């Protein structure tokens, strides 16, 4: 009897033997719900694979990312070069791994930056309301109205496109959706009883914001951040394709495509433009699947 929950009476146990087990922990519930979404699980496995492989690039591949070998340029996929070689005889598989390091670093860095800006602005606007809310939300409206690719291109041509500059620029152009989301969460949470209770006992505003409201808004924020990683990868690829991203000889998934867009390259070596794009597609797709899975798994109201 020591294993059973003391709050459940004997008669209840007879009616429902399942009650005998210990109640599930939150993380177990989360995991069980997430595992039910097959696409999300496949996406998560793929992402882990990509992240681990890119991180261990120097151990996995015998080549270096900028090793030119003009004897073997545009070599088709083979046992030596799994995904073929590019115009300078560099191994495409190797460059995809090293490019993954940069593309993923830019994407994660940008999303962290966007979260810091977006959560701060959304929390201030939603918690304090009134004139602060009005001003901050007009700022969001202004940034949203300008197509972000125009801002990105302008800023990157003015300041050089280094990794850190790219992260700053993406953070500055992609925080708005997070700000709106966090504001909405704060608006609905700030009038709930537990917040009013903390206010009554004199808790300081910053403790209420970070200690009480923000943890309750984490679910939607995590989902939005996951989806944002995918869209930053796409934007970075687009910018690199225009020649405004990471500069050669360093590889990023986008600048490999820029290099591959030459018509003669496309005709003689179709694998070159196909593989980097396919990897971008699969990675973004996986982030979107995982985001979708997290949405259901983190929502306490979702039906199991």
């Amino acid at each position, binding site marked *: 009897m020591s294993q059973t929950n003391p709050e459940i009476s004997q008669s209840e146990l007879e009616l429902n033997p399942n009650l005998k087990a210990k109640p599930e922990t939150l993380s177990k519930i989360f995991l069980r719900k997430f595992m039910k979404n097959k696409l999300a699980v496949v996406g998560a496995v793929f992402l882990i694979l990509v992240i681990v492989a890119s991180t261990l690039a120097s151990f996995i591949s015998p080549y270096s990312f900028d090793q030119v070998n003009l004897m073997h340029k545009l070599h088709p996929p083979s046992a030596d070069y799994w995904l073929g070689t590019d115009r300078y005889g560099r191994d495409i598989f190797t460059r995809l791994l090293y490019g993954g390091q940069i593309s993923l670093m830019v994407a994660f860095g940008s999303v962290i930056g966007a979260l810091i800006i977006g959560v701060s602005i959304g929390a201030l606007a939603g918690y304090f309301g009134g004139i602060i809310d009005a001003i901050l939300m007009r700022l969001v409206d202004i940034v949203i*109205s300008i197509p972000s690719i125009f*801002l990105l291109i*302008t800023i990157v*041509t003015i300041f050089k496109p280094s990794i850190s500059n790219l992260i700053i620029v993406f953070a500055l152009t992609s925080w708005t959706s997070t700000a709106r989301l966090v504001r909405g969460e704060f608006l609905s949470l700030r009038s709930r009883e537990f917040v009013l209770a903390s206010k009554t006992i004199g808790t300081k505003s910053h403790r209420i914001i970070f200690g009480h409201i923000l943890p309750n808004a984490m679910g939607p924020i995590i989902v939005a951040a996951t989806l944002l990683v995918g869209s930053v990868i796409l934007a970075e690829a*687009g910018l690199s394709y*225009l020649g405004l991203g990471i500069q050669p000889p360093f590889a990023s998934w986008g600048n490999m495509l820029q290099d591959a867009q030459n*018509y003669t390259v496309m005709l003689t070596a179709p694998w070159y433009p196909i593989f980097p794009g396919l990897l971008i*597609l699969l990675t973004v797709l996986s982030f979107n699947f995982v985001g979708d899975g997290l949405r259901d798994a983190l929502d306490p109201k979702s039906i199991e």
Partner: protein
Amino acid sequence: MISYIIRRTLMAIPLLFGITILSFAIVQAAPGGPTSMMMDPTMKPSDREKFEEKYGLNDPVHIQYIKWLGNMVKGDFGDSLIKRGTPVSELIMNRLPNTLILMIASTILAAVIAIPFGIYSAMRPYTKADNAITITSFLGVATPNFWFGLLLIMFLSVKLGWFPTGGVATLNADFSIWDRLHHLILPAIVLATADMAALTRYTRSSMLEVLHQDYIRTAKSKGFKEKRVVLKHGLRNGLIPIITIFGLMLPSFIGGAAITEKVFAWPGIGQLFIDSAFQRDYPVIMALTVVSAVFVVIGNLLADILYAIFDPRIEY
């Protein structure tokens, strides 16, 4: 209703102000200022003074902003720095029709394909067909549009020769609608892909919500055919939120158009913007940033007004 429209329009004005300030500020932040690249480093001090006088560079920043804004309201965006003497407004007006044709064509394409698929998905949720449509739209959202464009050019244009590789029309040929359409098909498909995918998912979820309403069940229990209930009773309410979605998708749509134009050498304002950015032609950059943002603001304004007209449940 009239008072709502007026109020909503007035609200757009401070927004436009903010947009012009932001566009101006970014360019001012360029090292050495926006006109530094026009000045010859070996210029004599007296020439430099004349130059600065001519372009008003001696004025304080806020005066420069007010002058720029004042001229812009009159339709004068200044002259291009690269193509000396060509007014920016002329450059934009030459390119704008091409961009509008591309955007209208792909909007129609996206709507014509996405809305029926979204409705069908909502009518048969969680079936094989619905799952296939959902996964396809996930793919559409995740595809880098420039890569999709490159693949289409690679297979359909270069290998098979079915379509031209770029441009709006065959060079030195007489104007023909068929030739124009032939050039338009691939870029329109590429630009429409992402929005088609997003629109399918929004239509599905919006219709799914409407089809669970009591009045739909009432209509069904009265013995109307399912097709009629969905298309006549459901669609009227299910499509209203789509108006807002169109407004919200506008910024990314314009951005997508810029890259698509670059891939297909389509001479529109997106390509003009990218080329000008590379050449640091700041008057063009500033003008196009403001013009595209004004499009977005007007688009959202129209979306809100249309929403108010189509949804009688909302009172203002």
